[in-house]
């Protein structure tokens, strides 16, 4: 018998476990066609393997019970045993056939979007951030952003995955399965989101010291909201709002512009993330810090302390210059 206090704790623990399944980074809470197909396959495996487990336990208990009843009286002609073995064999074959069929159907569902007209996206894995580019349907140009993936609800996005340095892996568990990004190769993945909201993607192939700090935010939004966002991303950067921000832009063009691009200014480096609309994003440095002016200034002042090993160098700026640069970046919406 279970005491009431223990029982209550068990119920709370179960509720917490179930709540953990509803997360923004969970394959058990599918928000896309591809994740839905994989989730269905997962449930089928649980049912079939659970059934086989129960069958094995039942067979074991049955054998023990029989052995105790007929102790010492073994005979060569044992009809119940024969029948039991044949039943088990047939059930196993049926279970495996169901699993193979389920796997085949899930695979078909994953590739079902291949014939559809899709939004083209390129994602490149870098140590330790994501370069994300959208093909502008009107002009055919590529529009670059970083560390934040926006997807239109109900429309398939075809993502080309590449890597610039080592092997990374692209996974948005709520929307689809994971696929590796391998230097020198292009892998394709289709994402068909079905639920609005913010989700989280994460690199899932160990890629160096800051592998854990290689995440990205995923926003699934209505098509008209997505279109407005994409149009905003194509625009050059906003002009500085005040004198401090204007000083920030001038400082930024020097040391920061060697690696970062802010379209419409002298900063045109290609090695680091595109910062044209950096303040419109939710986080800094691939999910390391939340996007605030303080976060930006802290990241500029001590990137090696916040994300040891990052390729973002520590730039020696005077406090006034660092303040101006963070004010400028915080205004780039």
């Amino acid at each position, binding site marked *: 018998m279970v005491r009431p206090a223990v029982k209550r704790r068990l119920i709370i623990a179960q509720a917490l476990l179930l709540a953990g399944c509803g997360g923004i980074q969970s394959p058990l809470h599918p928000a896309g066609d591809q994740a839905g197909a994989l989730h269905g396959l997962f449930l089928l495996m649980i049912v079939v393997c659970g059934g086989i487990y129960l069958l094995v336990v039942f067979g074991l208990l049955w054998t023990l019970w029989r052995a105790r009843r007929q102790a010492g009286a073994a005979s060569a002609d044992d009809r119940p045993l024969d029948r039991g073995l044949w039943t088990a064999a047939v059930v196993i074959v049926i279970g495996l056939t169901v699993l193979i069929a389920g796997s085949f159907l899930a695979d078909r569902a994953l590739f079902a979007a291949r014939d559809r007209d899709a939004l083209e996206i*390129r994602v*490149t894995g870098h140590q330790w951030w994501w*370069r994300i*580019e959208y093909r502008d349907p009107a002009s055919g140009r*590529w529009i670059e952003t970083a560390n934040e993936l926006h997807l239109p609800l109900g429309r398939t996005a075809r993502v080309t995955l*590449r*890597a*610039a*340095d080592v092997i990374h892996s692209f996974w948005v568990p709520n929307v689809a399965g994971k696929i590796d990004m391998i*230097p*020198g190769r292009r892998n394709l993945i289709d994402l068909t989101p079905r639920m609005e909201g913010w989700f989280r993607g994460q690199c899932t192939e160990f890629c160096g*010291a800051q592998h854990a700090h290689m995440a990205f935010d995923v926003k699934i939004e209505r098509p008209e909201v997505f279109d407005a966002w994409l149009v905003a991303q194509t625009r050059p950067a906003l002009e500085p709002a005040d004198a401090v921000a204007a000083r920030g832009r001038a400082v930024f063009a*020097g*040391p920061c*512009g*060697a*690696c970062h691009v802010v379209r419409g200014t002298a900063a*045109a*480096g*290609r*090695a680091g993330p595109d910062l044209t609309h950096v303040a419109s994003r939710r986080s800094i440095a691939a999910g390391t810090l939340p996007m605030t002016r303080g976060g930006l200034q802290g990241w500029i002042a*001590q990137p*090696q*302390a916040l994300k*040891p*090993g990052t*390729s973002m*160098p*520590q*730039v*020696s700026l005077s406090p006034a210059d660092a303040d101006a640069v963070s004010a400028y970046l915080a205004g780039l919406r």
Partner: protein
Amino acid sequence: MIRVPQIVLLALCLAACSKEARSLGPSLPQTPPAADDDPRIPAYEGNFFQIAQGGRYFAWYGCAACHGETSPGVLDLADGQWRHGGGFAAVFAAIADRHGRLAYRARVPAEQLWQLTAYVRDLPGHFPEKRRRTDLDQQAEPRAATWSGPQ
């Protein structure tokens, strides 16, 4: 049973790992080398990780556009001949101050200049096979301002 030569070999292999050691964290040089015997130099010149990082920044900043493998005369960094001196401090100063309007001392942080200097001074010792492998490793990495994604 493990014999003595094998133990010695294992110990040597382990000792070699220190050449790969990397220090993560905020303790970085903020100033240029004082002279060719600056005590901070061995941590860069004797460390493969720092030299390789120099190679990555060499590509990212677009140095290879002028200092390629087939560049002639003074642009060839691998021929072991230095117009302004081949010591660490001299090469550092040449990178930082002798590139005209590119003004690397103002645009490139001190630690990256240390890594670039270590890489450039290491170049004369790169045999062709090593160069080929470095090129392959860096094939997909960003290069200068005209780069448009890994090919």
